[in-house]
């Protein structure tokens, strides 16, 4: 089972990287939280019963883990010493206004946790039905919300504020 899981993770690791980058934008513990995500996925893996696509299940668990880590941070702020690697954030992780990726992440960072979850799924080309299934809302409802979130992001990208 372990081998199968590692293979699935390696095939879908891009999803996890994106979720980490969105939820832990400029967070020095990003790699640590990525590891927590892997641990939680592994613990939840026995509950995956092939009723949905692996990526759908992966998104649900990974999004819940990311949101949960943020809650934990707020409930009990993390105060551990940063390692040399964590302290020296790699150069490509610095916010750079000219970088499209940073600008987009910065705009998404202004959204609430639920809005982030919805927009990641939309940007990853999931259809409304799949998004509604992962998020737990009705399909009709999701379209309106996506539109509103997109407007917010565009407004932030154009004006620099929500």
């Amino acid at each position, binding site marked *: 089972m372990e081998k199968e899981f590692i293979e699935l993770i390696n095939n879908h690791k*891009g999803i996890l990287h994106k979720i980490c980058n969105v939820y832990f934008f400029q967070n020095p513990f990003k790699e640590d939280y990525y590891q927590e995500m*892997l641990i939680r996925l592994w613990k939840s893996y026995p509950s995956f019963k092939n009723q949905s696509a692996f990526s759908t299940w992966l998104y649900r668990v990974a999004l819940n883990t990311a949101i949960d880590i943020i809650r934990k941070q707020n409930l009990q702020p993390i105060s551990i010493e940063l390692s040399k690697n964590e302290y020296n954030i790699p150069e490509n992780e610095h916010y750079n206004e000219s970088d499209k990726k940073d600008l987009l992440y910065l705009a998404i960072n202004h959204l609430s946790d639920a809005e982030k979850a919805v927009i990641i799924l939309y940007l990853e080309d999931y259809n409304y039905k799949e998004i509604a299934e992962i998020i737990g809302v009705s399909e009709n409802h999701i379209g309106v919300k996506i539109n509103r979130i997109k407007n917010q992001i565009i407004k932030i990208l154009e004006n620099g504020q929500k």
Partner: protein
Amino acid sequence: MDKNDLKTMWRDAHVITKNNIFDTVSVQKSLSMNHCKSISKVLTDFKLKILVWLMGLAIYIGLMLYALVYLDLDLSIYSLVPLTLAGLFLLIKMTSEIIRLLILTKTTDNMSVKDSFLFFRKKLNKIRIVDFLSYLVFLYLSAILIIINYLSDIGGIKNISWSNEILPVPLLGIIIIMLVLIPWFIKYQHNQLYKKLYSNLNDSINLLNGDS
């Protein structure tokens, strides 16, 4: 900017790069771990807090047993009530920390994102209520006891002096007002402490419920 540009922007932003910071994390090694370093630290901090309250409670029970069983002291009801209140307070504080730890360790990974938000808000409200009620019961009962003691002049409380003056009623009033206000201050402090958390939680739930 066109709304459809966002997807293009997202795709362009995720062109595979050579230096990926996540590549340093080993999947295989992670599978044998319970939690990552920072989450383990948070949980250890909570366990230490619980241990401190547990030790306080154990010392309290030990002292009570020593006084009541070994020394066979015959304490009056006016002495027993505050002692019981102190024990109750230690018990409630320990329970409150245990509830916090349980909330932190309880995972909702397989729930939908919306259910996970609702579950967490319910638990957070539980923490708020337990914290508020524990202080409210303890401090209000203490205030009532002080008033009863004063009115009945138990232990000569009316003659207790402070700087060679008879304890003035206004000072007693200030102490009682403080005891009455502290639970509300605790509630306010809780709201301030978790302001960001509540704000994000409420925004998210409103969005998913369709209220906003």
